[in-house]
C-alpha cells in the first residue's frame, strides 16, 4: 500500500510542454507571489468546470473529481483563494478552454486575478489525459499550460503535478504538492509511525511495533525514515527504506534518540548517551559513528541541519536552561541563538536558512516562535490555543506543520502559513498525534 502510493513519482505524466511561450518565460521573470512575505494577500483564482472532450459520463465525473482535488490543493496554499463558482459569468467548459476562446473581461469583472481552465479526455488505453491552463486574467497571458496523462487511479497525483507547475510559475518554488508528512499517532493504542500526503490525505501506518515509537524523520530524498522505538525494550533508532523495506538499527548502550538526516546524504545526526553524557553524533546508515558533533557536558538533543548542511541547530542545556544553539559544521563554532525565556527547544530551519522555528515555554504556556538567525529577534506564532510544539517547515518555506492541543487538550497535527496565519487542523484521526516531519517535495 505504502509502496504503491510513493510510486506515483514515477508517473508517465507530462507528455509535453504544450503551450509554447510559457516555457520561455523563466520563473524569476514572473515571480508573482512572494511567499516569504508575512503580509501576503491571498490572490483570488477562478477554477472553472472541466471540459469533457468526449462528453462521456465517466469523463464528466472524473472531471468534477479533478476539479475538486485542484480546488482543495490551491486553497491549501497560503497564497491562493479559489472563488465561488456562483459568481462566474462564463463557462469555458462549453465555450472553450483555450486562450482565444476566453473573454477575460468576464473574469476580471468578478475580481478573478488568475483563471484556471481544464479539460479531460479518456484515452483508448483507458488512461486519462488532463489539459490544464493557468492564465493571468488582467494581462490575458497564459502562465503555464500542460497535458498530463496517466491511469485513472493517479488522477490526484496528476492534478498535484499541475499545482506544482502553478506554484513554480507564481512563486518560483514547486510547492508542497509532492510532499509527505510523517507523524506519531496513538490511533491503534500504541504510539506508531504514520505517513500522509501534504494535505492530510492518504494516511498510512508505517510501523506496527506495539511499543512506543517516536520522532520520525525523513531523509532528504524521502526514501528513508529514521525513528526511535522501544520495541526491543529501550530507545533505539530504526532506519527504514520505505520502498525496499531495507532497514537497520542504531543501538548503542544508553539511549539512541532524536535522529535528523544530513541533507543530500545517507548519514544522520542523533543523540547517543553511551559515553555517560548525551552528545550529538553523525552516523552512517548502519550506525557507524562518522564523528562526534557536540562536546559539552549536559543535555544536547534535537539536531536539525540547515538545508545546505553547513550548520546544525540543536537544543542544549550547557548554559543552565535549555536553549537553541547553532553550530557551524566547518568552523566548529557554536553560538547560542535564543536568549528570551527559560525553556526553548525543538528547532527547525526554514529552507532558506534565514530563520529557525522553535518551541518556547513562558508562564506554563507552550508556543511556537520563529527567530531570525541574524537579528536574533523572535516572533511568536501561536497564542492562547493550547500547547503548541514540534514545528517543521514545508520544503518551500511557505508553511509550518506543528502539534497543538487546542482541541480538547489532545495533541493533534496542525498547519499554518509561515507568518502564523490560517492555523488549521491537518487531519482527523482519533487518539493523539504529534511530532510531524515534512518531507521535501518530490515533484
Amino acid at each position, binding site marked *: 500500500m505504502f509502496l504503491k502510493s510513493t510510486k506515483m513519482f514515477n508517473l508517465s505524466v507530462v507528455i509535453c510542454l504544450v503551450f509554447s511561450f510559457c516555457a520561455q518565460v523563466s520563473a524569476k521573470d514572473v515571480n508573482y507571489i512572494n511567499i516569504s512575505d508575512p503580509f501576503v494577500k491571498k490572490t483570488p483564482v477562478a477554477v472553472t468546470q472541466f471540459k469533457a472532450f468526449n462528453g462521456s459520463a465517466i469523463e464528466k465525473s472524473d472531471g468534477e473529481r479533478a476539479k475538486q482535488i485542484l480546488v482543495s490543493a490551491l486553497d491549501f496554499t497560503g497564497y491562493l483563494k479559489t472563488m465561488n463558482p456562483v459568481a462566474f459569468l462564463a463557462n469555458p467548459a462549453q465555450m472553450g478552454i483555450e486562450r482565444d476562446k476566453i473573454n477575460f473581461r468576464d473574469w476580471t469583472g468578478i475580481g478573478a486575478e488568475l483563471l484556471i481552465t481544464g479539460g479531460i479526455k479518456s484515452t483508448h488505453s483507458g488512461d486519462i489525459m488532463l489539459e490544464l491552463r493557468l492564465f493571468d486574467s488582467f494581462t490575458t497571458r497564459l502562465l503555464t499550460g500542460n497535458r498530463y496523462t496517466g491511469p485513472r487511479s493517479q488522477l490526484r497525483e496528476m492534478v498535484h503535478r499541475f499545482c506544482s507547475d502553478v506554484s513554480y510559475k507564481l512563486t518560483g518554488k514547486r510547492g508542497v504538492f509532492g510532499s509527505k508528512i510523517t507523524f506519531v499517532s496513538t490511533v491503534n493504542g500504541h*504510539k506508531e509511525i504514520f505517513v500522509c500526503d501534504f494535505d492530510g490525505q492518504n494516511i498510512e501506518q508505517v510501523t506496527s511495533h506495539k511499543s*512506543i515509537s*517516536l*520522532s520520525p524523520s525523513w531523509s532528504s530524498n524521502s526514501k528513508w525514515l529514521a525513528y*526511535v522505538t522501544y520495541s526491543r*525494550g*529501550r*530507545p533505539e533508532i530504526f532506519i527504514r527504506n520505505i520502498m525496499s523495506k531495507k532497514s537497520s538499527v542504531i543501538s548503542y548502550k*544508553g*539511549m539512541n*534518540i*532524536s535522529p535528523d538526516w544530513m541533507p543530500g546524504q545517507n548519514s544522520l545526526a542523533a*543523540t547517543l*548517551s553511551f559515553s*555517560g553524557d*548525551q552528545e550529538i553524533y553523525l552516523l552512517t546508515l548502519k550506525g557507524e559513528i562518522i564523528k562526534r558533533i557536540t562536546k559539552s557536558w549536559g*543535555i*544536547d*538533543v*534535537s539536531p536539525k541541519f540547515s538545508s545546505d548542511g553547513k550548520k546544525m541547530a540543536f*537544543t542544549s542545556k550547557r548554559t543552565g*536552561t*535549555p536553549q537553541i544553539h547553532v553550530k557551524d559544521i566547518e568552523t566548529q563554532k557554536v553560538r547560542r541563538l535564543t536568549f528570551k525565556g*527559560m*525553556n526553548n*527547544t*525543538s528547532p527547525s530551519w526554514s529552507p532558506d536558512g534565514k530563520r529557525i522555528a522553535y*518551541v518556547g*515555554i513562558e508562564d*506554563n504556556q*507552550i508556543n511556537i516562535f520563529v527567530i531570525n538567525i541574524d537579528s536574533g529577534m523572535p516572533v511568536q506564532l501561536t497564542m492562547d490555543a493550547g*500547547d503548541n*510544539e*514540534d514545528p517543521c517547515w514545508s520544503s518551500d518555506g511557505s508553511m509550518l506543520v506543528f502539534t497543538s492541543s487546542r482541541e480538547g*487538550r489532545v495533541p493533534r497535527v496542525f498547519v499554518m502559513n509561515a507568518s502564523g496565519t490560517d492555523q488549521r487542523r491537518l487531519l482527523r484521526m482519533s487518539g493523539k498525534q*504529534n*511530532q510531524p516531519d515534512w518531507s521535501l517535495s518530490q515533484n
Partner: protein
Amino acid sequence: MKKSVWINLVMAVLVAGLFLVVSCAKTTVVSDVPPIQDRSDMDADDAKIAADRLKAEKLREQEIRDQELSLAKTVAAKDRFGNQDVHFEYDSADLSLMAKSVLKEKAAWLQANSGVSVTVEGHCDERGTTDYNLALGERRANAAKSYLVNLGISASRLDSISFGEEKPLDASSIESAFRKNRRAHFVIK
C-alpha cells in the same frame, strides 16, 4: 423394756454387719489400688506432654505469625521499594534532600536483598519537547542510580532507562499531576 433391748441388739448386729461389709469391701478393693495410682501418674505425664505440645504449637503459631509478619514486612518493604518514587523539580535532575532520604531507604533495602537487580526508570512531566524529555528522564534515572552506587550498591545490579514524558502516572495537565510524573521509578527485575 425388752422391746428396746431387741432394737438395740438388732442395731448392734446391723452396725457390726455394716462394719463387716465395709471391711469386706475394703479387702476386695485393695487389690485394685496400684493400677489406680499408676493411672494417676500417667495422667500427670499426659498433661505435661499435652502442655508441651500446646507450648510447641503456640510457639509454632507464634513462629508462623512471626514469619507471616516478617513476610508481610518483607512484602511491604518490597512494595514500598517499588511504589515509592523519587521526585524532581521542573526541568531538573538534581536530587533534593527528600529524594536522597528516599534513596537511602532504597539502598538499605537493596543491601538487605542482595540477590535483587533493579531497573531505574526516569520520567518527566508533559512540558518540554519529546526529545528533550527523553534526555532529561535519562539524567534523572542516572542521578538516582549514581546515588545508590555511591551508597555501596553494585552498579551491576542497577539498570537505567528513560521514558521521557511517554508514561505519565497522571495524564491530567495540572501542576499536581506534573509533580507526580517527574520521577525516578524503581522496578525489580
